[in-house]
């Protein structure tokens, strides 16, 4: 990595720390974990409490609904947490990052750095790497925290190794989501279109893709993999390859658009 890239990453890390974005990312990941843990542990007592207050009340169907929504088994509960991360965390992170690069370009913040020798590609790449890494690391920490607490309070049916891999896959998911959002935001005319298309993809495609045989090859299958808390790791490879290939194509398009002008 050259000196310009290192300086750029250093500057963007300062941005993430000093503008409070790291705190937001961590608070979201841990906040969602605390919320689901709380709901799971409190809701499980509601049918019993209702039965005590209303003797003769049939609680079996209610118990079924609650146990399916917020199961008290670690593996299934971790899947619920992963789903909430995929839904709410992604949504908020996309809304935060989609405007960063277009806003910097529009405000001409790049004029001075470009004069001193930075390239647009370096500025874009650094922002993608830093924001992607911070979002991914926050999710990894949140997932492990959730696993530890769930392991202490719920019925254990998941090993630490499995949790580590699932946490890693989900952090990769968020890493890719952030990078896609930032790259789309500089490719499309409007960053809002980038945000909307990313949100639609993340929220709709994982649920729809499971109905098709090729669904397991799509990058969004990595989300489904974590939602289902799978342990068949061989399934990770095809969507991961597809994801990397897709990212390379996108990177190529961005570099074609923002390549430095040829010297006359």
């Amino acid at each position, binding site marked *: 990595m050259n000196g310009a890239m290192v300086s750029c990453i250093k500057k963007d890390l300062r941005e993430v720390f000093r503008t409070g974005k790291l705190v937001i990312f961590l608070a979201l990941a841990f906040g969602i974990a605390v919320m689901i843990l709380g709901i799971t542990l409190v809701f499980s007592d509601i049918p019993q409490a209702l039965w005590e207050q209303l003797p003769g009340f049939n609680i079996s169907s209610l118990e079924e609904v609650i146990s399916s929504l917020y199961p008290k088994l670690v593996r299934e509960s971790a899947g619920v947490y992963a789903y909430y991360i995929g839904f709410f965390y992604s949504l908020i992170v996309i809304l935060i990052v989609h405007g960063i690069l277009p806003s910097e370009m529009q405000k001409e913040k790049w004029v001075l750095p470009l004069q*001193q020798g930075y390239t647009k590609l370096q500025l874009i790449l650094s922002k993608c790497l830093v924001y992607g890494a911070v979002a991914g690391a926050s999710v990894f920490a949140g997932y492990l925290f959730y696993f530890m607490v769930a392991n202490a309070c719920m019925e254990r049916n998941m090993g630490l190794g499995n949790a580590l891999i699932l946490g890693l896959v989900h952090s990769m998911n968020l890493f890719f989501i952030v990078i896609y959002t930032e790259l789309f935001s500089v490719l499309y005319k409007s960053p809002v279109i980038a945000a909307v298309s990313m949100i639609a993809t993340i929220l709709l495609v994982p649920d729809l893709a499971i109905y098709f045989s090729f669904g397991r090859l799509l990058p969004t299958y990595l989300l489904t993999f974590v939602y289902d808390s799978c342990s068949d790791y061989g399934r990770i490879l095809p969507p991961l390859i597809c994801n990397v290939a897709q990212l390379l194509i996108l990177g190529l398009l961005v570099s074609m658009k923002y390549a430095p002008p040829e010297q006359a």
Partner: protein
Amino acid sequence: MIKIEHIQKAFLAKQVLRDVTFEVEEGSIYGLIGKNGAGKTTLMKIMTNLLTADGGSCVFEKEKKPLSVGYLPDLPEFYDYLTTDEYLDYLLFDQNPIRRDKLLSLVSLPKGVRIKTMSRGMRQRLGIAAVLVGNPDVILLDEPTSALDPAGRSDVKRILLDLKKSGKTILLSTHILADMDTICDKAGFLHEGTIVKEVMLREQREQAAGLIVRFAGDVEEENKETLLAGMGCDSKWQDAHTLRILFDPKDPIGSQKQILSVLSETDLRIASIGSAVKTLDQIFREVCL
């Protein structure tokens, strides 16, 4: 030498620059004057390759070697979460703390001040330091004093004169014509997409051509005649209390002595004496309005 030749630029149907041609002498300060929307910023962006011209050329070279160019936009945007030294370090790829300290001292900025908390004047000075990071030969400044208070304007003017002394060539645009009068060597008026007039300000300052004398109250006809006769050079009454006197180009010192002696003997009360040279403001009104 900077040579701008036949620059043209249109945005959709609007022809902003029709045919801009001018030259800037090396080591001088050139002022670009024009109304809002005259195309000053567009021209500067073309000169720094931030925009592409539809036609024409910009040549920056000295003895056939290309000159480096630095450009500072009118309201420079920084990364507000960084401090002054961190920002310059970033522009220097974290590799030259000595140069960073020199630049900060040149623009009189302290280290460690968060950019977010800085005044406009300080930001403008930081912008100048940022432009100087690459040590460009030519510096283009878009409205460097327009958003500043008098103290800030004075600081920026001092820095620009220091840069000129160190051999930099500066091209600046501003609405504040008084600033141009005092620091620029030459000014060009950009109007309707072309340079309609150029004024050699350095020569004007060095060779004042005459005086404008303003008397307190209206001067009677008899006194007017007496004064005109006594001056012995080209002079005329602009109105009832303002006399414009032009020195004799063949003997400027002699006519200067003569004028001062007539004025010292008169019983009329003088309200003010100024240079008869047209101010940039007057020329601007003539050519751009």
